[in-house]
């Protein structure tokens, strides 16, 4: 297969497309560094990604698969004098654990009687015993539980288990080198293009159908209460009448979720953007914000004594609150006003718990709870100065965009890293997904990494490398603490946890620690955020891990929602849920790893609600490498860019003004290439020209090594030119970026296919979908 090579020289090679890496990539590219940005995954944003429902099911399956042993190729033949190889880890199995999926929705649309033939696998006595016990606690074990569809399929498996036999056509992970042609094709995780054969994954493919009799996984940590609701073998058929007696509104079936799967954008991490946090500031400063849309979080809720209450935090909330007395209103407002400034009185509490400070303010239980858990969002032991700082931060963010301090990106958090990737591509960065680096080439004299060898064996020299920490083997990492994890749960529910007139609420729910457990942050997203289908809500729960995600979070889910274990709950029903643990990125040290000094480590998502950690990390890596340069300066106004061919879009006449290296490109010859040379300017000029220029590019790319560069440069022009022209021009870009893998073969096809991996285009399509 014709494999197009990448350019052999870059300033910075970045592995992983998570937020920190993507921000760094954009920052480098913006100041003129040549950036190669790779991800071995087939989707952008690493553990920050957002998936459609169907893509998430695929992701789940991948996580549950046994990691394929990578055959380590020996690249020592590429070594030169005085060089050494550092092999990188090729699987990222370590960051996600304990993936468990439960489906409580009926399999088919409701008119079909629930198929209740299948049984809980009786081969697992332990699990069953557990279940029985749990049922006895709750209610009568004997009568069949009046669950919506009791027998409906819960698939469950731990990572350690081989997945239930499936015929998933997902060969890529097994291959060390995916064929380049495929690397351009639509990754299954993102929206499957209509043309693709497996566009609508059968439920059977992703979730083993109930008939397949889930093997209760012999987990090391058996889930405390299995959700399978069919404990009694003799009762094979729960009276259907019972399950149908309740429904007042139309129940949403699993089939419906799958059918509507494209409407979902389910984030792996759950965070919010503080409206004066570093991420928002960065988005504004760098003009990256134009690539995304945002919604206000509309309210802050708290879960207290078994009830969900609204936390009044803005002036109008306080005014409208019905649960506060007027005196409480005054006290709260006064406290919020007074803590804006540091006072002598506050300093006296430095080092003592914030709780103590609060209780000395004589605010009363209500207000104290709100201030500690929902506004400062700290624990009872947090020192006063930290608690106050958190409170102030909250207050500063309030009112910038709305009545809460938070924003949420429409289409999910996975948009944000992609926006930065796009910025990087606009300024010439090259993107390859499903493309990795096998090893670093160490210059033994200087102890610097002088080049990398990519997963196809190409040697690419570079001045700096930024690595997502998953690429580095544990033996080279220095971590003072044992790795920490986050517990995550994702629920699809059929209603809001605190319904109001408006169905467009986006809520943050703070759940204070219960019985020594960690505090849980919960975000409920409505369809207005374009992350879930109409009639459903998407609920994210996050907390620092104590046990498995299921252990940590399922009791809370049971107490807040209607599940098979809490069938009488009058809250919203959980239709489907996913539990998993994710590595907590805040545990990774910035320095001191056994790595060359020009190799920089970045980490995945941390447990905090905001994005400060990742942004700080990107900025510090950037400043270490380029201490003199500005971090993400504003992108210039398209009107102010000087085009070399300012007269018209003709690419012919641009030799004179180009600087040195583009001059080279020009030299390679024909008019086509000129297009490249012009790239920064000219392509910009004529958005249309890109189309043709693009077709040219592929051919072009074959010609010279630089050609890729050039093709890429076309990007630059293009996107700059039309920040708004997200449409076709963009598709070209990313097609391009992907091209680098292999531009020749699919020339035009790449354009359409390629945009699926493009940050911008994907957004475009989804928007189109949403407008249907």
């Amino acid at each position, binding site marked *: 297969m014709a494999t197009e090579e990448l350019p052999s020289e870059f300033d910075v090679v970045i592995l992983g497309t998570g937020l920190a890496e993507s921000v760094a990539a954009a920052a480098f590219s913006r100041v003129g560094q040549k950036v190669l940005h790779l991800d071995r995954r087939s989707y952008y944003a690493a553990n920050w990604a957002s998936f459609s429902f169907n893509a998430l099911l695929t992701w789940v399956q991948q996580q549950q698969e046994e990691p394929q042993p990578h055959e380590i190729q020996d690249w020592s033949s590429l070594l030169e004098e005085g060089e050494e190889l550092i092999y990188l880890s090729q699987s990222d199995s370590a960051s996600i654990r304990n993936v468990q999926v439960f489906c409580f929705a009926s399999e088919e649309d409701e008119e079909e009687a629930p198929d209740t033939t299948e049984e809980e696998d009786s081969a697992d006595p332990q699990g069953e015993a557990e279940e029985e016990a749990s049922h006895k606690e709750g209610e009568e074990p004997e009568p069949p539980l009046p669950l919506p569809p009791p027998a409906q399929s819960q698939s469950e498996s731990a990572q350690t288990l081989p997945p239930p036999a499936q015929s998933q056509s997902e060969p890529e992970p097994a291959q060390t080198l995916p064929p380049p042609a495929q690397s351009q094709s639509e990754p299954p995780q993102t929206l499957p293009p209509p043309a693709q054969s497996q566009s609508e994954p059968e439920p059977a493919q992703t979730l083993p159908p109930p008939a397949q009799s889930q093997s209760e996984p012999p987990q090391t940590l058996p889930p405390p209460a299995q959700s399978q609701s069919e404990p009694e073998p003799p009762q094979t058929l729960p009276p259907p009448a019972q399950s149908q007696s309740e429904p007042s509104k139309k129940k949403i079936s699993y089939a419906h979720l799958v059918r509507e799967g494209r409407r979902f954008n389910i984030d792996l991490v759950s965070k919010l953007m503080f409206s004066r946090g570093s991420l928002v500031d960065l988005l504004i400063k760098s003009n990256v914000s134009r690539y995304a849309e945002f919604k206000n979080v509309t309210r802050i809720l708290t879960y207290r004594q078994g009830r969900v209450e609204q936390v009044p935090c803005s002036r*109008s909330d306080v*005014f409208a609150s019905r649960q506060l007395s007027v*005196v409480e*209103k005054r006290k709260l*407002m006064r406290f919020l006003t007074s803590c804006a400034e540091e006072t002598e009185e506050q300093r006296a509490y430095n080092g003592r718990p914030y709780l103590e400070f609060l209780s000395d303010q004589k605010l009363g239980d209500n207000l104290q709870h709100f201030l500690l858990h929902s506004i400062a969002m700290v624990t009872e032991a947090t020192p006063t100065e930290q608690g106050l700082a958190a409170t102030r931060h909250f207050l500063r963010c309030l009112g910038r965009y709305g009545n809460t301090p938070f924003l949420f990106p429409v289409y999910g958090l996975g948009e944000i890293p992609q926006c930065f990737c796009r910025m990087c591509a606009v300024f010439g960065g090259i993107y390859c997904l499903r493309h990795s680096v096998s090893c670093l080439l160490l210059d033994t004299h200087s102890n610097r990494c002088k080049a990398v060898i990519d997963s196809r064996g190409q040697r690419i020299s570079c001045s700096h490398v930024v690595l997502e920490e998953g690429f580095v083997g544990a033996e080279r990492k220095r971590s003072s603490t044992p790795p920490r994890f986050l517990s995550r749960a994702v629920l699809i529910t059929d209603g809001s946890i605190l319904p109001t007139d408006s169905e467009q609420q986006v809520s943050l729910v703070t759940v204070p620690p219960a019985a020594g457990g960690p505090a849980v942050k919960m975000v409920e997203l409505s369809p207005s955020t374009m992350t879930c289908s109409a009639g459903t809500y998407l609920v994210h729960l996050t907390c620092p891990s104590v046990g498995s995600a299921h252990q940590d979070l399922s009791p809370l889910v049971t107490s807040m929602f209607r599940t098979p274990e809490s069938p009488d709950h009058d809250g919203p029903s959980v239709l489907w849920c996913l539990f998993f643990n994710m590595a907590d990125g805040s545990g990774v040290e910035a320095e001191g790893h056994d790595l060359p000094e020009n190799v920089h480590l970045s980490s995945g998502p941390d447990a905090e609600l905001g994005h400060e950690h990742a942004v700080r990390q990107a900025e510090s890596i950037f400043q270490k490498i380029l201490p003199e340069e500005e971090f993400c300066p504003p992108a210039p106004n398209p009107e102010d*860019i*000087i085009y070399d061919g300012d007269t018209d879009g003709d690419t012919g006449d641009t030799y004179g003004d180009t600087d040195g290296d583009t001059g080279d490109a020009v030299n390679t010859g024909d008019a086509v290439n000129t297009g490249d040379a012009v790239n*920064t300017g000219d392509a910009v000029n004529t958005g249309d020209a890109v189309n043709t220029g693009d077709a040219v590019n592929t051919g072009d790319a074959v010609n010279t090594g630089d050609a890729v560069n050039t093709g890429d440069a076309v990007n630059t022009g293009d996107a700059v030119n039309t920040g708004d022209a997200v449409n076709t021009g963009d598709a070209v870009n990313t097609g391009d970026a992907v091209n680098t893998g292999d531009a020749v073969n699919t020339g035009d096809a790449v354009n359409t296919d390629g945009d699926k991996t493009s940050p911008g285009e994907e957004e475009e399509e989804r928007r189109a979908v949403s407008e249907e």
Partner: protein
Amino acid sequence: MHGRVKVKSTAQQEEEKRKEREKKLKIYVAARDACFTKRKEGIFDDEALQISQQLLSSNPDFATLWNYRREILMYLETVKEEDEVQKIYVAELSFLESCLKVNPKSYGSWHHRWWVSTRLPKPDWARELNLCDRCLSLDDRNFHCWDYRRMVVKMSGVPVDQELAFTDRLIGSNFSNYSSWHYRSTLLPLLHPESPEPTSPCHKPPQSSTPPSPQILSHRVCEEQLLKEYELVQNAFFTDPNDQSAWFYYRWLLGRAEREEMISCVYVCRDEERVAVAFSGPVNAQACGLLLVLDGLPQRVEWRSVHPRFKHSPVWICDFPPGTISDIPNEHNLTVHWTEKPTHRDCALYTGRSESWCRDSATDQELFRSELSVEKTSVLQSELQSCNQLQELEPLNKWCLLTIILLMRALDPLGYEKETLAHFQTLKEVDSMRSAYYSDLCSKFMIENTILKMEYAEVRVFSISDKNLTTLCHLDQLLLVTHINLSSNQLQRLPPQFAMLQCLEVLEADDNSIENLEGVYHLPKLEEVILKNNKISSLSDLQPLASCPKLKRLDLRGNPVTQTADVESKLAELLPSVTDLLL
């Protein structure tokens, strides 16, 4: 560094912008001239509409062009079918919408929209209302929009309860909005009018047949709704006690009972053969149809106010022709008719009496509770409690203090006098910029209290010494006072209103800062004036005293005027009636 995008320098940008501006200006000026020419020639065609549209969309405040457009549209109305006219006007409305986007506070655009809306053959008021709501959601204090919205509501007959819900919404999103509160105050009386109270027996028979006029219905709201409003507004001022809008609304809720217009006192004096009439408010007696009937016979008399400065005054006097009532053995019956209102008051001058009067006293009328309404005491009491609660939390909040004072006065002016004074003291400290205002207000309340005390004691002596008075008011209530003691206050003048003390015989005003005696004017009975330690500096300041025929004793010790050369002889010349002069 290679690979960077090259950006134009600021100088280049400036230059380009300048050129751009010049170009635009040329186009603009040319279009404007074309428009003017067309208007002059009386051309009302589509082209003119187009050109003016272009101009107005970049500058919507060009009033002449709006006028021209109206001329064109009015012309088109005469030549086109109604359907077409409708289309033109609808297009005009959407054009106006774009103008409002350029400048949401453009007088021209809003006025033109109003004009178009009222001429539109088939107006779409829902759309207009929607536009207003959008506009107000962007700027909830855009008064142009509020005005326009009022018109739309009126024209389209939006139900009052919907409008009240609208103010609920606006207040909910931001209660610092006078417009919303004020709008509420106009809606509530319509939606929840006060149940008609049995009117006081003495006046006008209840006119059950005709509905009460809006003025009389005015601003009162039924008690049930009032309680809800109290709760709402309390939420606002507890949330942000420094926001004035809620406090003002609260003041409105607490209400200001309007005094009925009436003749409050008729005084007749045999010696001077004079009648003094006091009204509940300032009137112009010469123009209001006042009729004096003596013993059944209408009299031709000339009414004059107590001081030439007043065209409107609460006190008017007239003289009988000499000999009309000077016959001591005879009884006379007087009636003063206020033909306009109509109301009247009788007064009998009995045999052997030298004077007589007929009046309602301040205590009968609960005059000085009128700052606040006549709400049931319990409601006010609980309001006072919650304000006190707030005051404990915010001891220095001026709005809260002031409201407490007002509530206290409404409830029991004399009982709360001490607390009121203490609160005034705090107010002057926390809001020193307005300390003079608070002093005046406090003076007013002290005078009211003293009047009440005097009325209870049924005497004609008014003594208010050492109360830090800075101003005098309610002097019409002192028409019958014969002896006034104002000593040891901070008065700077005796204002013209002072001339309403028609019965005054002794004036004590030691230890003030009086420098002006303008109000001691034509006081027929005044005999003694004590002005020790004031700031009267020249003889001309004493000039008004010359109009008091009976003045005998004058104490000017401790005034700068005593230092004037020849002061004694000059005073003798100025005030020949004074026999006892202390300098």
